[in-house]
């Protein structure tokens, strides 16, 4: 008996979005002209994006500012109609904005708050509970669990304007998860938070994904978020999908080089390296050089044979450097 393939939880086919933007020049003369004659420009924000995401996966969308990550997320959450292409999320077409769909998804934005400002978060939660028609028992249970996981029982009765940024972010998360969504879109959730809070939130997301099986798409500029949480990344640059796979694979594809860190028994000194290796600025008493993946073994044995080496490691380049290179060069 043939096994029916499981339909992906989130899928995109040829997803595209083009904007018409008004061109506006500088100065008074240009403003007056623009009153009578408008010039438009077509901006391709997203171009032919395809991917499938299975239920329970945690995927990172990475890419420079303006790459189209947020636009893609907005299309997947139904906030934007695409110019072309299709998508399905949790079995629905997002931009039809059916009630069943809206109840199954949630979006948390790092830079915009959905909390009512002057009153305690508990009151916003109650309103949301009513809006999402969460049964009272389930509401209380979910709330208790989230409050405990995030350690925020003391915050529930303080007006939101009196909370710190990290505390407000916790409230945003509770607000976004009260109705137990199947799909969670996180747009820069750790923006502006201190390191310990970022760590705590990362553990939270991991735990949530594991225990609830929610599918999570995360965008973040902090590579630490992506490295810690997302086994799979989708790299979007200038509206195009450049890479879809494991993060480690990205490093391999983009930066096929290795960094050899070594320490000489007599401390840093001037040395001669083969042509295939480039010396990097040294830190402390360690020296470092960069070489291609293929040449790494040869350079390693050269160093070990030629100099008196006290310590030597061969490393992958830091992922930030890899991504930086993509952002600068604009292609893979």
């Amino acid at each position, binding site marked *: 008996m043939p096994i029916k393939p499981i339909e992906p939880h989130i899928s995109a086919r040829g997803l595209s979005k083009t904007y018409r933007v008004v061109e506006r020049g500088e100065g008074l003369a240009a403003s007056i002209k623009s009153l009578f004659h408008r010039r438009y420009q077509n901006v391709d924000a997203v171009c032919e994006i395809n991917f499938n995401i299975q239920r329970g996966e945690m995927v990172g969308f990475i890419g420079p500012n303006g790459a189209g990550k947020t636009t893609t997320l907005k299309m997947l*959450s139904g906030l934007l109609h695409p110019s072309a292409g299709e998508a399905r999320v949790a079995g629905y077409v997002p931009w039809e904005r059916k009630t069943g769909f809206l*109840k199954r998804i949630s979006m948390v934005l790092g830079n915009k708050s959905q909390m009512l400002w002057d009153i305690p978060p508990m009151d916003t939660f109650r309103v949301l509970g*009513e809006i999402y*028609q969460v049964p009272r028992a389930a509401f209380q249970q979910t709330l208790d669990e989230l409050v405990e996981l995030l350690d925020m029982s003391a915050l529930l009765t303080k007006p939101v304007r009196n909370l710190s940024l990290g505390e407000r972010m916790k409230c945003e998360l509770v607000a976004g998860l009260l109705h137990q969504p199947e799909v969670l879109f996180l747009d820069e959730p750790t923006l502006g938070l201190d390191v310990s809070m970022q760590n705590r939130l990362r553990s939270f997301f991991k735990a949530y994904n594991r225990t609830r099986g929610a599918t999570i798409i995360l965008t973040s500029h902090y590579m630490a978020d992506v490295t810690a949480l997302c086994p799979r990344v989708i790299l979007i640059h200038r509206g195009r999908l450049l890479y879809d796979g494991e993060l480690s694979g990205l490093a391999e594809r983009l930066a096929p080089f290795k960094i050899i860190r070594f320490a000489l028994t007599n401390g840093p000194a001037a040395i001669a390296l083969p042509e295939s290796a480039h010396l990097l600025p040294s830190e402390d008493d360690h020296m470092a050089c960069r070489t291609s993946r293929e040449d790494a073994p040869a350079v390693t044995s050269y160093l070990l044979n030629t100099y008196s080496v006290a310590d030597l490691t061969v490393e992958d380049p830091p992922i930030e450097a890899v991504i930086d290179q993509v952002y600068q060069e604009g292609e893979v």
Partner: protein
Amino acid sequence: MRYFRLIVRFLRASAQQEMAYSVNFFISLIYSLLNLGVGVAGLDILFTQVQSIQGWDYASTLALLGIYLVVTALRELFIGPSLEALAGMEGEIMSGKFDFTLLRPIDIQFMSSFRAWRLFALLDLALGIGVIWRALAIPGSLLAPGNILVFAVVMCAGMLVMYSILLAFSALVFWSPGFLFTWVFDGLIQLARYPVGMYPQWLRFVLTWVIPVGVITTIPAQALSGNLPAGYLAGSVGLAVVFFLGASFLFRRSVRRYTSASS
């Protein structure tokens, strides 16, 4: 039923927000009394010089002022704050928080119209009713309480028209974000303080058929004095329904535009 419970929730949340700042209560009180005082003083000054203008005497014009206060109080109660939260200066359309509203599994028009309440407006409502009462009590006035039923119907029609105009103006913000259409409405509604009969012929036409601000207060005031010409009852109800349907259609169309064109 569900929508009723939602309204209760919205009411409670808004009430709590209002009470977070107690000084606002006294300020609101002062503003309400000031609004009333200036309105009545204006009428007193006007009618020191004339007995009646185009058939409107002091009593009937005062009644119209009372109707204006009642109608604007209702606007201040929930329609105004809710649509301001959407389309006003610090509104969601401009700040981008409209995305959150779009994500809710609730009808957008309902949410945009009932979401925020300002209970201080009940004070204005009471003041307005007081003014109408006072106008009815003026000896020799032409006002006849017997027309209450007709009055109630055209009042409701007038309020539906006001809601529709404000909804339409708010919808326009989607097409030209940054332009404060709701403030334009604020200016135009001032014209409803006086009967359209007191305005020149061409303005009367505009205020009855183009932007029917006149319908909101003048027709109920005419109903109160038994002067309502035949057919105006059905006419104003019909106008209200047409405007409501048109404004709702415009609003939904505008939301669609937002999701197609925004970034």
